[in-house]
Each structure stands twice: as structure tokens, then as C-alpha cells.
């Protein structure tokens, strides 16, 4: 089968169930494309636009996952018709992959559900959520929605987590959201420093739970890199969140999970409705299983591919005096020295979509996801054109 560079499989016939676009599973820019049909406030992206706005594997999930999804439709496409809370196979596969037990894992509708459950369970009116600013906003947004206080800790001058300040602010917190690599800055704290931080917070603030979001774990190339899953399974106050939406290229399918101590996992699963699977679609369960059971070379290849594109793109900006924060992920946070919005609009008009504003840095820093090398070569030509024009003075 001829695989295109971009979409790897455009469409595949699956009889009664109709045609499925492989690119859908990756659902690149899903926040901006298919969703516009049901949520018009989101901008639609027409075909051909280079989407560098949502930190997803630009190649999608790979042919083995696509094959598993097609097979999951079953005879006459009937399988998706039946609800299944049977997530045992996927949980068992994740447990094997991570070297933990099934009772250490709860699945979620993307890691979003994991982040929400943890926020719901561990924050309260007198137990704040603590996070860096900026970071991925799901936990803070949900805490605010529930009327629970949020404590924001500024990053240091290099956009890395200021561990001492963060640990101090964590005292008395309900939940600490520790996103590493951090979104939107892509900066990374090494495994040793993170372990020290976790030990310090659990020692100094024993009532505090720490959620370590490892959404971009697979993209890290720093040698001081390790998962904190082993600490989480031992300590009821540490949870690790993972997702299939980023390096595994399955954002459109919605599958993520938490790893932790059985007591903590049970709390989260109970809150999510017993099995914890009411929100999970059956296609995602099959896809997740295939993603894990495929050759580990898939993730290694994706990490290497991304690093090459990351090095190219970061150098392009650095060579022109625009310094990106040190990225260990599949995106970067770069200082354009001008407001992001006019830059984004001008790029968008030329077929390149970069990310939304990330206050309080909307006056200078843009988050740009890494596409394929071919896409980034086209994108930097667009950036050059847009940046050649002087920004509006009133910025």
C-alpha cells in the first residue's frame, strides 16, 4: 500500500460502515476542524492548511492502529452499536507495558477526563489547585468552575518550573498539577529534580496530591528522563497521567489513562462511574490496544523524526534572533518580540495555523507545534514573509 507522507492512508473502504479517513484518528487540529461543524465557535480548517496548533503527531497513529480500528467495526459494522465497558484487555496491555498491575490504571476519555477527575476529587473550597502559569489549563479551569481556589506559580526566566517556589506554593494544596514537559512552553524538568520535588511536597504537605502529566513523555530526548509511574504506584498521593493523543497520534479517538496507587485509582474510577469506562468509545479501546502492542520502534521513530524537525525549526528562529524556550516536546514556545495575534492571522491567511494565545505571554510568545519536515520547510517560508513586515506600532 502506498502511504503518503502526510496522511499515510487517506481513506479505506470498510463495507457497511462506510469510509474512514485514517487522518481522522490523528484528527490533527481536531479542535479546529471537524468540530467547527458542531461547535461553530471553533475555526474551520480547509484541506491543505498546515496545522501547527495542537501538538499532535502529524503522521497519525500508523497503519497497525488504523487496521485495528477498521477490524473493530466487525461484521456489517455492528460492533460500535454495542456499548462495552470491557476495558480489561486495554488495561492489561497498558499494565504490561508500564510494568504495573491492572488495579494501578484507570482509563479516561483522553487525559482530559483524568485531569478533571483528579481536580474534582482532590481540590475543595479550602484545598486549592496549584499549577504553573502558563500550563495546560484544564485543571485550573475546572477548579474555578467548581469554585475551588487556584494558586498560580510563575515559571522562571527560562520558562522552566521554579521548583522551590512551586514546592512552597504546594503546601496545603489539594492538587498540584505538574505538567512535564510543560504545555505551552515545552520546557522540561529532569527526572532527578522531579523526584526530589515529589519527595519534598509529599513530605512537607502530606495532604496534597500531585498529578504528573506526562502527555509529552514520548518526545523527551534529555538523557535525564524517566517516568514517575513507579513512584505513583507506591504513593497514593502521586498520580501520573498519560495520553494516546500526542505521540501515538490518536487525538480524534479520545483515550488517556492515569497510573497510580490502587486506592487512588479506585477513587478516580468510582467517580467516573464504576467501571470508569462510560465515556470511552469502543473504537478507541481497540486502537489503544493496537497502539501499545505495535513495535516499540513506532514511538522511537516518532521521537527521532520529531527531534530532527524540532532542531531545524528552533534553529531557524534562533538564527533570526527569536529564542524559543528549550523544547523537549513536539512544539515550542518562541519569543517573536511582537503580539501573537496579528502574526497568527497573517500566517493563517497564508495557510499555516499556529496556536492560540497563552496569556500572559500573548504579547510576545507563540506556541508552534512541529509538523513534518516538509511542512515546517513550507511554514518557515511563511513565517519569514510574515515576520519581514513590521508589527503594528500600537502593540
Amino acid at each position, binding site marked *: 500500500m502506498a502511504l503518503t507522507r502526510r496522511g499515510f492512508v487517506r481513506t479505506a473502504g470498510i463495507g457497511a460502515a462506510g469510509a474512514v479517513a485514517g487522518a481522522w484518528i490523528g484528527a490533527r487540529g481536531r479542535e479546529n476542524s471537524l468540530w467547527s461543524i458542531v461547535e461553530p465557535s471553533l475555526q474551520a480548517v480547509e484541506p491543505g492548511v498546515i496545522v501547527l496548533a495542537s501538538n499532535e503527531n502529524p503522521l497519525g497513529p500508523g497503519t497497525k492502529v488504523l487496521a485495528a480500528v477498521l477490524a473493530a467495526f466487525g461484521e456489517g459494522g455492528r460492533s460500535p452499536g454495542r456499548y462495552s465497558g470491557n476495558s480489561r484487555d486495554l488495561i492489561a496491555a497498558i499494565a504490561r507495558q508500564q510494568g504495573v498491575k491492572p488495579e494501578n490504571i484507570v482509563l479516561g*476519555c483522553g487525559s482530559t477526563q483524568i485531569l478533571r477527575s483528579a481536580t474534582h476529587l482532590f481540590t475543595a473550597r479550602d484545598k486549592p489547585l496549584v499549577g504553573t502559569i502558563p500550563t495546560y489549563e484544564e485543571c485550573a479551569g475546572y477548579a474555578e468552575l467548581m469554585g475551588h481556589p487556584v494558586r498560580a506559580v510563575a515559571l522562571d526566566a527560562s520558562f522552566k518550573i521554579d521548583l522551590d517556589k512551586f514546592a512552597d506554593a504546594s503546601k496545603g494544596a489539594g492538587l498540584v498539577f505538574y505538567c512535564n514537559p510543560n504545555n505551552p512552553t515545552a520546557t522540561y524538568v529532569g527526572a532527578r529534580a522531579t523526584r526530589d520535588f515529589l519527595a519534598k511536597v509529599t513530605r512537607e504537605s502530606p495532604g496534597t496530591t500531585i498529578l504528573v502529566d506526562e502527555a509529552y513523555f514520548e518526545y523527551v530526548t534529555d538523557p535525564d528522563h524517566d517516568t514517575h509511574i513507579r513512584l505513583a504506584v507506591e504513593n497514593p498521593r502521586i498520580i501520573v497521567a498519560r495520553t494516546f493523543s500526542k505521540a501515538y497520534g490518536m487525538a480524534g479517538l479520545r483515550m488517556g489513562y492515569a497510573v497510580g496507587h490502587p486506592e487512588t485509582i479506585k477513587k478516580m474510577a468510582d467517580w467516573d462511574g464504576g467501571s470508569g469506562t462510560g465515556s470511552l*468509545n469502543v473504537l478507541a479501546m481497540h486502537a489503544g490496544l493496537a497502539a501499545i502492542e505495535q513495535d516499540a520502534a513506532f514511538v522511537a521513530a516518532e521521537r527521532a523524526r520529531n527531534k530532527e524537525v524540532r532542531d531545524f525549526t528552533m534553529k531557524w528562529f534562533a538564527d533570526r534572533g527569536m529564542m524559543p524556550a528549550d523544547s523537549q516536546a513536539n512544539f515550542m514556545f518562541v519569543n517573536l518580540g511582537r503580539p501573537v495575534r496579528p502574526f497568527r492571522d497573517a500566517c493563517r491567511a497564508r495557510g499555516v495555523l499556529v496556536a492560540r494565545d497563552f496569556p500572559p505571554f500573548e504579547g510576545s510568545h507563540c506556541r508552534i507545534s512541529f509538523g513534518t519536515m516538509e511542512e515546517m520547510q513550507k511554514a518557515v517560508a511563511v513565517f519569514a514573509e510574515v515576520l519581514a513586515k513590521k508589527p503594528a506600532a500600537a502593540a
Partner: protein
Amino acid sequence: MIDEAYHEYVTDPSYRSAVPLALDTPNVLVARTFSKAFGMAGMRVGYGIGRAETMKALAKLKMPYNVSVFGVAAAMAALKDTAHMETERARNTAVRDFTVKALEEMGCKSAASQGNFIFTDVGRPAKDFRDACAKQGVIVGRDFPPFEKTHVRISIGTMDEMRKAVAVFRSVTRPGTTSLDGRRQEESWR
């Protein structure tokens, strides 16, 4: 909140959806699902209908990105295929009528069903009935307290499935018989 999960299966001519009411009334909303008549339970798509301000309040709490791209695409295609829904409703009505009648002949009276399932008085604990059916390869609904001592919820399958299921129900409602005995008895009645 008016749950119209089984809206598409209703055949009573006096039935009216509450959607117009919900669109007029801020404290009324209607819930619908693609999990039942649309046959998409594995895809996890449902929705609420009501006044914009009511929906806005709900949307605030909605988890972001909680529907898969397949779910959205399938739901959109499903809504367009109105002919299929007519066929599905007619199919269900025929199988429902068949099943209700067969159970009645066994002495099991069902509440008048407008859905794709029936709540029927088997005159014994649901668990006993359920376990006996399961042994013969037919799965019926869980307990529904406070009626777990008498009533069973039976979803309507295909006509082919319900013909087989009815034979199992018959064997189960006659104590001391097995499916094979049930068949023998059935033959002996003819």
C-alpha cells in the same frame, strides 16, 4: 430534564416530543442519544436540546473534546438517514409485538411498551429467571428494584433472536424443564 432516549421507537400516535416545550422553557431540557435506535452505543454520543441560555450553562460543565471524531461523523450521517429510522422503528414494533404476545401466552404480562424493551412480570425473582436464561445463552436485563422479585426487563433483539429467546423463556417459565425439554413440550402442544 426529559429523557427521550427511546424517542425513535415510540409508535403511539398521541406521542409528542418535549423538544418544542424545552425550546420555550428555560428550566426544561430534553436529552437524546445515539446509543439506542441509532445503534451507536459503542461510539458514545448524546445531546441535550433546550433554550440557548440553558445549553450555555450545560456547555460550561461539558468536558472538552469528549466525543470522538468517528462519533461526530457517524451521528451526522445517522441524522440524515431518516428512511433507515423508519425501517428500524417498524422492525422493532413487529418484534416487540411478537415478544409481548409470546410472553403473554406463557402467562407473563408486560407493561405496555413504547421502547425497544419490555418490562414483564415473570412471577419469580428476576435473578432466577436471568440465571436460567443465561445458561441457555440468552442475557436479559439486571434487577430493577423494587421489582426484582417479579419483573424482568427484556430488550428486543432481531426477530430471529427473539424466536430463539422466546423458546428459552418458555422453558424457563415452566420449572424443571430445560431448553430441550421446552422444545419437546412445545412440540407436544402442537
